């Protein structure tokens, strides 16, 4: 038997596979047993009520999709009252993803979310910062630091900072989040992209641009995890394009302690279960007794030349 458990800071997960925010809700319980997952991560909620973005909200691309859901939100109270209890029966810890327009709102929302039933706050700082011209908090080290430290102060729960791949300097952002007290990093969110319908000449998304996810971004997400693991010592949760057990192995070798699966669950609703079983089979076939032994074990013999 393979020991699939991993430790993300103070928290021990029964296995490293969990959903990515926005790509999971209790409805998956119609297809598989949610209790098998390492953790349960819900769609980002915001303190403000929001309708989300105009339709169409999804466009298919080569080995991936673009989404511009935005963050429709019924507010923090609704989340605490309606969503948290949905997961009370499951043994997997609940990770509440939070997003906000300002540092102060982030802190307030985080405090309000820190209720029994919620095990971790995931700070989605890849969203637009209204105090910085709409640039996402995680685009710059300063705003990353400001947001994460305010969030940390607002809660006794572990805080995971979810970074954006759209920044030009992921290492500086990762270090800023670590300095601000993040207990782990989630690397990473979707990459900004767009497509245009050549018949109508219109952008295919109602919001013009949206986030690219799925296998298409896997090599980029893996590189970001690798770069973050070079500089931080807090755990990293890899995310981006994971669709198979071997993808998890790749992310763990690059430095991730656990992983999140997003878009793959839209192609196969039970993708996370398949991934988990493939991961286990991979370890069994190679006599790897503890999946945690894969973390950061890529054999890199020399410094890469970056450009």
């Amino acid at each position, binding site marked *: 038997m393979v020991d699939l458990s991993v430790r993300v800071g103070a928290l021990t997960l029964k296995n490293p596979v969990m959903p990515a925010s926005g790509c999971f809700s209790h409805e998956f319980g119609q297809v598989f047993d949610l209790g098998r997952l390492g953790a349960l991560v819900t769609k980002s909620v915001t303190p403000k009520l929001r*309708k989300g973005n105009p339709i169409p909200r999804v466009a298919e691309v080569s080995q*991936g999709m673009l989404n511009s*859901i935005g963050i429709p939100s019924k507010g923090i109270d609704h989340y605490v009252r309606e969503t948290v209890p949905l997961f009370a029966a499951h043994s997997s810890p609940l990770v509440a993803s939070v997003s906000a327009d300002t540092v102060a709102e982030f802190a307030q929302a985080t405090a309000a979310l820190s209720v029994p039933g919620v095990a971790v706050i995931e700070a989605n700082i890849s969203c637009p910062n209204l105090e910085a011209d709409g640039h996402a908090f995680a685009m710059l080290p300063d705003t990353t630091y400001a947001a994460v430290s305010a969030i940390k102060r607002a809660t006794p729960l572990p805080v995971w900072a979810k970074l954006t791949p759209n920044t030009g300097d992921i290492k500086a952002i990762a270090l800023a989040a670590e300095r601000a007290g993040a207990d782990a990093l989630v690397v990473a969110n979707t990459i900004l992209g767009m497509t245009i319908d050549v018949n109508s000449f219109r952008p295919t998304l109602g919001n013009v641009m949206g986030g690219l996810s799925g296998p298409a971004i896997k090599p980029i997400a893996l590189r970001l995890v690798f770069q973050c693991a070079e500089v931080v010592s807090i755990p990293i949760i890899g995310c981006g394009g994971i669709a198979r057990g071997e993808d998890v192995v790749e992310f763990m070798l690059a430095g991730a302690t656990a992983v999140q699966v997003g878009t793959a669950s839209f192609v196969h609703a039970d993708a996370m279960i398949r991934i988990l079983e493939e991961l286990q089979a991979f370890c069994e076939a190679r006599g790897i007794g503890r999946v945690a032994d894969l973390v950061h074990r890529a054999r890199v013999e020399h410094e890469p030349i970056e450009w």
Partner: protein
Amino acid sequence: MTVAQPPAAPTGFPVGNAPCVVRANRAVNDRYRHLVLEAPPPLCRATPGQFFHLLCPPFVDNEPYLRRPMSVYRVAPEEQAIEFLYNVVGAGTRSLARLVAGDTMSVMGPLGTGFTIEPAYRHILMVARGVGLATMAPVVPWACRRGIRVTAILSARSPQDLMEREFAQREDIRVHPVFDQDGTSAVGRVEALLRGILDADRPDAMFTCGSNRLMTLLQRLGTEYGVYGEIALEQQMACGLGVCLCCVRPIRVGGEIEHQRVCCEGPVFDLQQVAGTWRHG
């Protein structure tokens, strides 16, 4: 009571996700094709208006990544079959068109909320355009078997495109075909036809799918005549299960506009609640 109350799934999970073997995949006419899959029992519990999420196999260059939603056209649990009628419009449906008997594809479902057909109804009116009739067709045997009379207006470009036989299946229903070709499908002409039916033989409910113009017309007439109506909507989907919030359409609920998910609150909605129209492409 809704039709959409399937018995508990044998696996313990209400939504199935299974490989299905293609039994047949034939052209019905120049535009539409008919796909018959051999499906395990949990999938055969679909009710009229529900849909399946099909993973289209990669045959060529531009292979489909996401699944494609497709209304169930016919379910035959006794034959372990689910059937679809579809129009080839893009990469996904092109891939479907290439399937041959013996091929296998991954199918998830049944999904969504189907039509509400009260067993107490005596007469229902169905108004379908184009491939929308595939979505509504399973209502016909369901109603007929319960002694509900069916009147249908089927709208198509031309007589060749009309799938009257596919729609009526083996049932004895009254069909009014209307066509673009001879102008009979024009909104004014259809309105006259509808008023005739509503005046002469008021239906208990109206069902529609496939046309924004017909939707607007039916909303108006439904209010005027006080007849309850339902419509099956379409929207681009990713998950098909209510998770991703991709598939929303604006729905009027108590004076407010809400974004509701076509894949789980729908695809069938109260006709009067649908706010605004929408076209693909």
